[in-house]
């Protein structure tokens, strides 16, 4: 039983300039919304050393010219080190930063604890370990608007006395309580007064303590979220639920493909036109070639995917902020479990149909390391949009379009669908193999909190998009530039009388010839060999390379390129090429992002070797069959 008397007064420490303030709170407490609200565009994302947890740092401008650094720590339900070793990287990072054990980062000078005011006792459980840190603390009771609307209330004065620190009601989405938070950030706040805390290692004890504190603060819990219950009866309905789920998936597909296409064409045209514009104003030299054909078009080959990726993340943002994403994961879980995965793998794998890079970035929501690794390792099998140009070229060249199901489905469309299905089947197979070998474990527990539905805000979505765009461009850009320059050098050196040689006489040509014996069993000649090399930058580059080799402007004269390929490739080789591109990890950006996310070279190397082997075997089989 808790006594409700005010605890004895401790001495408040003198004011000191807070240089770094940590934001901490349980998942779904609106912590990141508040972080965005406070810092706006003054944010940067990095990784904590040694783990794959994103470090979100930002600056808050106070009155005058003073700024305070703010770090948004990963969501955590507790700070207790557990005995079972199942602590996620997220929780370890949160603990280490708060204890000042994180390399390259000072111990925070103060802490904002953000909790969901609509479920006070549950959320206050985290306050006990945070209070025990002894750092100046402001407890932010977020979602106060929700609390009031649903008829709940709390005595913040009494709560403040119980906790020995400041407490403020706030709403990160509405901007309520911001003044008090800014004041706390700027004022060099006092350390909390000592209060009696429970045994921190015992979750039940902490929870009991939180219940006592809540009682003393005359907390009136709000009515249950009626709308959430109503919506769940639709979204989790045995019939309507899967129907809505299917609609959402189709809508995502439709928008990231049809919706993004004109924008992507625009970006492509922009890079081509601006390249030509600059080229026309530079003397013809090897440097102009390096700049335009190497650096600029290499950059363009990555930036072109940005519109699609942003649309994808806009969708994921809406789904996640509204709360539907948790329901989608719940619906997908049963099916995903059959492949040894879980519901949270669903969205990353769906994203991989646009591009594996954002998909692998999106696996961070999966706490279980094994499930996350399995998802990362199979994501590149999904048919990403960089595969479409080569699929379209080969199918159009080698498969006459005949109706299969009347006007609904022709042979060419069926072949395209078949390639999608093939990638998917290989992903499922790989997942099964992984889960019964390297990543073997007890079937992972799927435990997921279903947050109440909420309206997403434009501000939140906009900042999220900006953040993802920056991360994508940096991850992919860091890789693509050097790769583009190296591949350009391979295709343009050695110089022949100061001019680049014809591509067959270049280093790339030599490599193409050198690997011809190795790829001949697949039905590929040295020209395809060059294409396989240059498309390591990004899969769709092979179309441009083949155009260069055959001396044909690939975009403008696709029909002539198709004819050239018909003369030069056997049907077996052509189908082999399709299969090769379906399975091979022909994408250095993906390799780089896997290295980044798995924290080492082992997994990306194994993955690259595995996918290339599968691709080789598949292409060989296809060449023999056709």
């Amino acid at each position, binding site marked *: 039983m808790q006594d409700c008397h005010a605890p004895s007064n401790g001495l408040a420490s003198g004011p000191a300039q807070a240089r770094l303030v940590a934001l901490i709170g349980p998942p779904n407490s609106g912590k990141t919304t508040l972080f965005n609200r406070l810092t706006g565009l003054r944010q940067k994302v990095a990784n904590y050393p040694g783990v794959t947890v994103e470090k979100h740092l930002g600056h808050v401008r106070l009155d005058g010219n003073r700024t305070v650094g703010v770090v948004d720590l990963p969501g955590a*339900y*507790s700070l*207790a080190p*557990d*005995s*079972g*070793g*199942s*602590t996620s990287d997220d929780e370890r990072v949160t603990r280490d930063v708060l204890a000042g054990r994180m390399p390259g980062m000072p111990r925070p000078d103060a802490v904002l604890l953000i909790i969901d005011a*609509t*479920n006070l*006792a*549950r959320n206050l*459980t985290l306050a006990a370990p945070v209070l025990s840190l002894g750092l100046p603390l402001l407890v932010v009771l977020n979602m106060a608007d929700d609390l009031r609307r649903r008829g709940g209330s709390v005595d913040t004065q009494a709560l403040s006395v119980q906790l020995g620190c400041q407490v403020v009601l706030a709403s990160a989405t509405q901007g309520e309580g911001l003044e008090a938070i800014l004041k706390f950030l700027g004022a060099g706040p006092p350390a909390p007064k000592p209060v009696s805390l429970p045994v921190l290692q015992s*979750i*039940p004890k902490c*929870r009991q303590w939180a219940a006592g504190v809540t009682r003393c603060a005359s907390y009136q*819990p709000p009515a249950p979220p009626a709308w959430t219950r109503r919506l*769940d*009866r639709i979204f*989790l*309905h*045995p*019939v309507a*639920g*899967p129907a809505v*789920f299917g609609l959402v998936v189709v809508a995502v597909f439709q928008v990231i493909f049809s919706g993004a296409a004109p924008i992507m064409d625009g970006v492509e045209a922009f890079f081509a036109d601006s390249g030509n514009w600059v080229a026309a104003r530079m003397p013809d030299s090897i440097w102009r070639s390096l700049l335009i054909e190497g650096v600029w078009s290499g950059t363009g080959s990555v930036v072109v995917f940005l519109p699609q990726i942003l649309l994808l993340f806009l969708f994921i943002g809406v789904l996640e902020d509204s709360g539907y994403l*948790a329901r989608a994961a*719940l*619906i997908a*879980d*049963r*099916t995903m*479990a059959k492949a040894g995965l879980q*519901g949270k793998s669903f969205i990353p794998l769906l994203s991989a149909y646009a591009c594996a890079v954002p998909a692998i970035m999106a696996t961070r929501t999966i706490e279980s390391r094994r499930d996350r690794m399995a998802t990362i390792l199979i994501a590149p099998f999904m048919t990403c949009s960089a595969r479409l140009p080569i699929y379209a070229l080969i199918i159009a060249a080698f498969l006459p379009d005949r109706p299969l199901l009347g006007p609904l489905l022709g042979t060419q469309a069926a072949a395209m669908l078949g390639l999608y299905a093939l990638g998917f089947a290989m992903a499922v197979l790989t997942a099964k193999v992984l889960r019964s070998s390297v990543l073997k474990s007890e*079937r992972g*527990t*799927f*435990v*997921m*909190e*279903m947050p109440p539905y909420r309206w997403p805000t434009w501000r939140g979505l906009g900042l999220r998009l900006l953040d993802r765009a920056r991360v994508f461009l940096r991850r992919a850009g860091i890789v693509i530039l050097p790769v583009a320059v190296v591949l350009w050098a391979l295709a343009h050196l050695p110089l022949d009388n100061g001019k680049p040689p014809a591509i067959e006489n270049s280093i790339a040509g030599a490599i193409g010839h050198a690997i011809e014996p190795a790829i001949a069993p697949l039905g590929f000649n040295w020209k395809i060999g060059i294409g396989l090399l240059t498309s390591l930058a990004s899969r769709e580059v092979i179309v441009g390379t083949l155009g260069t080799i055959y001396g044909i402007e690939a975009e403008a004269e696709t029909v002539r390129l198709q004819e050239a390929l018909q003369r030069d490739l056997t049907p077996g080789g052509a189908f082999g090429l399709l299969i090769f591109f379906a399975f091979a990890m022909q994408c250095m950006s993906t390799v780089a992002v896997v290295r980044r996310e798995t924290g080492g070279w082992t997994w990306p190397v194994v993955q690259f070797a595995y996918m290339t082997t599968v691709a080789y075997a598949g292409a060989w089989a296809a060449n023999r069959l056709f």
Partner: protein
Amino acid sequence: MSSNKRASDLSGLRAGERAVLHHIDLPSGEAQRLMELGFLPGASVEAALFAPGGDPRVYRVDGAEIALRRETARKLLVLTPAEAPCSESADAVRI
């Protein structure tokens, strides 16, 4: 007796039925994770909606909704309303 047995873990609860959690029969790491989410011995858990395929299922505990797979729910042993303790033995089930 048979109805008692049927409901002796969370997976046996009917929709809207409540039960008091008695024990989590899982390794300490997993049990701790569930406890952080509110599945504490002595807590009252209400079974809510199933996912459309019949698994996982949403449970209401400590003011939140948490989805669990059936295989996990089977490891969360409960006292049926009939055996739920009165105040006298309430402390016994609190660890």
